[in-house]
């Protein structure tokens, strides 16, 4: 019974821990060398901003835009290594092409659903984690774009093809990767082009900031926020990563919640089992006391047994936990899952169970040690 309870606890900690640690390890690789430390965005006020739905293309999801002049100002703040403006929008390429009269448009018939459009100076793409894997970067002046790896696969487009966006034709000159699933499904072009396309001249969605060497980026972010208390705020995670991280947070929280419940249940079961064992062995404990065992010796015995109990449960729980993860992994129920069997996780699981054994044994051991030998001996 107790073994079962602790085993469930260990299995939960190990199994869920494996899942939870597996997910971030596949996303964190996205952070590249040149990447920005944080982004500056407009402070969202609930009043409807003048921007966002202005352009013929895309939606800004309610995100207010920032005046481009802020980039220069931020660049002047001490500690800022570089600051670059980015305009982000979502568009449905199907719709834009369907409104064109040009039926032979090579535009993305195969682009389904919403596509992210990112406008950024071609010299600063590394700030947004963009790495060109094929071809070259676009020129800031020509109608050139680069497309994300998964966007390329999805739309069957490659270097040299053209895509029509809002009645303008763009040439694909490169394929890029960011490691961020949302951005990898998108299209990147120069900031000017996207601003023109969306009628947002002089506006950006966010400013990516990289601290200069030796500057604490957290402090810098705070400094910027303090300089524009009503207008700007900062976010340490970049754009699409936000959502990913939020998802991970939810999973992590769920993992801990479930683990916590499992641990609690395991702990309660340990206490109940050991209390039952103590009461069943009241007479035995009385005999041991009569023979000359001290209270401490009784406490040691009960806690020792409680630890033994949890050790057995650990073995069962480990096997169950790993088994569940293996099965989940092999059925492919969670795509992209890479369980990371880290030592620290096992140590965590075993540590938790051992702790349960000790803590769960303390109260029953205390009870046992308080038994009066005469009372215990009279007990039938």
């Amino acid at each position, binding site marked *: 019974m107790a073994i079962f309870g602790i085993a469930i606890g260990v299995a939960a900690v190990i199994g869920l821990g494996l899942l939870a640690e597996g997910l971030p390890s596949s996303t964190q690789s996205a952070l590249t060398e040149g990447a920005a430390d944080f982004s500056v965005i407009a402070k969202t006020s609930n009043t409807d901003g003048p921007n966002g739905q202005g352009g013929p293309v895309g939606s800004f999801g309610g995100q207010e835009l920032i005046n481009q002049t802020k980039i220069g100002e931020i660049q002047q703040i001490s500690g800022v290594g570089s600051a670059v403006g980015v305009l982000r929008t979502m568009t449905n390429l199907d719709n834009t092409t369907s409104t064109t009269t040009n039926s032979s448009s090579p535009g993305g018939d195969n682009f389904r659903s919403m596509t992210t459009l990112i406008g950024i100076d071609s010299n600063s793409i590394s700030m947004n984690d963009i790495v060109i894997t094929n071809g070259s970067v676009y020129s800031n002046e020509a109608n050139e774009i680069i497309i994300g790896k998964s966007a390329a696969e999805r739309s069957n487009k490659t270097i040299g093809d053209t895509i029509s966006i809002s009645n303008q034709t763009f040439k694909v000159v490169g394929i890029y990767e960011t490691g961020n699933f949302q951005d990898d499904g998108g299209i990147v072009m120069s900031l000017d082009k996207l601003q023109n396309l969306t009628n947002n001249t002089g506006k950006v969605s966010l400013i990516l900031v990289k601290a200069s060497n030796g500057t604490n980026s957290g402090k810098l972010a705070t400094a910027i926020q303090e300089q524009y208390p009503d207008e700007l705020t900062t976010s340490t995670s970049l754009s699409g990563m936000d959502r990913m991280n939020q998802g991970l947070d939810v999973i992590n929280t769920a993992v801990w919640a479930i683990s916590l419940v499992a641990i609690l249940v395991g702990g309660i079961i340990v206490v109940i089992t050991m209390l039952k064992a103590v009461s069943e062995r009241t007479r035995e404990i009385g005999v041991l006391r009569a*023979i000359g065992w001290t209270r401490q010796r009784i406490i040691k015995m009960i806690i020792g047994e409680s630890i033994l109990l949890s050790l057995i449960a650990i073995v069962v729980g480990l096997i169950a936990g790993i088994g569940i993860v293996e099965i989940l992994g092999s059925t492919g129920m969670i795509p992209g899952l890479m369980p990371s069997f880290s030592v620290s996780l096992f140590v965590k699981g075993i540590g938790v169970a051992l702790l349960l054994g000790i803590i769960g044994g303390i109260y029953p051991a205390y009870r046992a040690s308080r038994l009066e030998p005469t009372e215990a001996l009279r007990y039938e």
Partner: protein
Amino acid sequence: MSDGNIIEIKDLTKSFDGGNITALDGINLEIKEGEFVSIMGPSGSGKSTLLNMIGALDKADSGQIKVAGIDLMQSEDFSKFRLNKIGFVFQLHNLIPNMTVHENVQIPLIETDVTDEEMIERSAELLNSVNLGNRLDQLPTKLSGGERQRVAIARALVNHPSIILADEPTGALDSRMGDIILNLLREIHQKENVTLVLVTHEDYVANSADRVINMMDGKIVT
């Protein structure tokens, strides 16, 4: 301690249930070192309670009690005293069921200065002397009542106690087994010159002692 008394008790009282039950009502008793004393009396007269006081299993309310030179009215843990001076034999249920016979006898010596080798040697020797040398590795559940009681006696002796306190050790046994246990205790008492205090209901058992004490309503009557 005067006149070689190993047990000295004066005006000892003990009550239970917040004073509603008077188990010991002014006991005065002296027992000499090496003496064999039996205690008789009707059920509820306080025999076990008195034995528990001598063995420091319980604390008296008032009076004086000194055993083997130790004042048992002090408030402290007397585990050490029991370990070093006392050997208990109870009426029944007094072995640890999931330990072998051999281990049961060794329990009192665990975590003492006695080495493992000596523990095993002493235990085997004692179990031999109670004719259980061939049952060392069995669990107590496999033994008869009389055999279990002999294991208990071996265990009571393993720490070389000064006093053996036996509370109706033959009570749960048939008379033939009872005789064997009784003879064993008497033999040990004579050979080791250990003080033996034996609670019993049976006259013939009591009469084999050096002295018989009769109790009634928490008092010694003769």
